[in-house]
């Protein structure tokens, strides 16, 4: 069964959104609860491996446009110089490492897509290392994120070609925001509100990959979207309610996506993709 955010909130009731999602997945697939959790745990391990390979300073993509930048970012973080502090900084570094690992044909977990694969692992793994989140809690948080992702995918879209980058990085930030709210003790309603705040902040974001490749601006947007996830979670945890019903924000995203011209939906024709300097660099690299 597919659920809207308000249906997920009702389903969780007084209990946890993570438990509701695990139970639902087990019932749908006929797997045991233990097996469902074990699968998510193996995905978590894969996320950790992707970060490690993405931090390699020698990494380069086939086009030459990405790779090795997360290593620079990490160095600055280790020097304690990142302006946003260590927790957010680490999430951003890890998001970039994952996105670069993806661009360089490394192994990643689509979350919800390959193009937006850095945001959720970045936030969850940073919480594990900087905020004492256990592996078990991290697995729970990934189920909360998956439930949110399902609500978005079935009511709007998670594909850049259909809905623009708001559907990819926006959805990933919404999933990460709900996961963060969950890890900090937020209620199911607060998780849904956090997801809505994240989408609200990325509404209208276009999908404009240079050369049609998942590199520029995708890698950098994975980094920036982490900040949106933390901001959204912080707002709801402060007791701020989303003034719009969260499902309506998802539907707004769908409407905005439908209104985007084809040139801004993953065709590589408009936005950043139309900028001459990077196109020239890409051409020089691939010829």
């Amino acid at each position: 069964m597919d659920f809207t955010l308000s249906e997920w909130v009702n389903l969780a009731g007084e209990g946890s959104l993570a438990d509701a999602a695990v139970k639902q997945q087990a019932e749908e697939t006929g797997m045991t609860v233990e097996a469902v959790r074990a699968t998510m745990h193996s995905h978590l391990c894969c996320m950790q491996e992707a970060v490690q390979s993405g931090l390699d300073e020698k990494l380069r993509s086939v086009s030459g446009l990405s790779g090795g930048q997360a290593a620079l970012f990490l160095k600055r973080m280790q020097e304690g110089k990142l302006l946003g502090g260590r927790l957010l900084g680490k999430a951003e570094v890890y998001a970039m490492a994952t996105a670069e690992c993806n661009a360089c044909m490394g192994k990643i977990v689509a979350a919800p897509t390959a193009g937006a694969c850095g945001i959720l692992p970045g936030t969850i793994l940073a919480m594990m290392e900087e905020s004492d989140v256990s592996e078990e809690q991290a697995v729970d948080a990934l189920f909360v994120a998956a439930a949110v992702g399902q609500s978005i995918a079935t009511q709007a879209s998670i594909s850049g070609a259909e809905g623009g980058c708001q559907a990819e990085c926006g959805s990933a930030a919404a999933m990460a925001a709900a996961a963060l709210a969950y890890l900090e003790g937020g209620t199911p309603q607060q998780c849904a509100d956090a997801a809505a705040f994240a989408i609200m902040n990325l509404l209208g974001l276009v999908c404009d990959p240079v050369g049609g490749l998942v590199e520029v601006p995708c890698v950098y947007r994975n980094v920036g979207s982490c900040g949106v996830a933390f901001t959204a979670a912080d707002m709801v945890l402060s007791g701020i309610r989303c003034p719009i019903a969260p499902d309506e924000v998802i539907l707004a995203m769908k409407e905005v996506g439908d209104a985007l011209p084809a040139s801004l939906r993953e065709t590589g024709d408009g936005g950043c993709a139309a900028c001459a300097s990077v196109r020239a660099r890409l051409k020089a690299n691939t010829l």
Partner: protein
Amino acid sequence: MKETFTPKDDMTMDLFDLIGPVMIGPSSSHTAGAARIGLTARLLLNEDVCKAEVGFHGSFAKTYRGHGTDRAIVGGLMGMAVDDPRLRDSLTLARESGMDVCFDVVNIRGAHPNTVRLTLTGVSGKELTMEAASVGGGNIEIHKLNGLNVDFTGKEHTLIIHQTDAPGVIAAVTGALAGQSINIANMQVYRRKAGADAMMVLELDGAPEDYVLESLKHMKAIRNVTFLKRRPC
């Protein structure tokens, strides 16, 4: 690059479609889907590939190098799955193993933007042509097999029968499956013209025993029987 992943009305999204699949980047449609197409073709050929002509259409033609679509297809043809790190080096591995690969850009009228046409020769000289599309989220559709129009995904157990169009062939195949209590989820029959080349594609809820497949192969009107097991990931 066109990627559409709209869940159909009757389709439920598994939570592991949102966090997953585990795959080699950078693109679920241009890399993971491409690897799945290659692997499906390799399974359909049912022997190692010694020669492959790969024709890219549409968005695939524009961006195949940068997305590693070429490496993903060849890796799949060598039997690699979507999460196999060797996909990256598949072109070198293919060369070392003596596989002859050539890439081309083709224009297939009316085809999905992410379509590839494969013309394969196996080590025993067996040949296979296939057109398939990567339709988003790593999902694929096979649209043409040895010149005949088909429509299947390889996600379920799939039985493909290549036969001469004749009365009773369908009954014999479905009868053999009924004898094994195997339910048919979906079935399509295609033919070039009456009495000529024909093909049957059946998506099954269970896997038939090898001896059933063998017995079908010996039927007079049946030219070839191929069984694809449900894709594990």
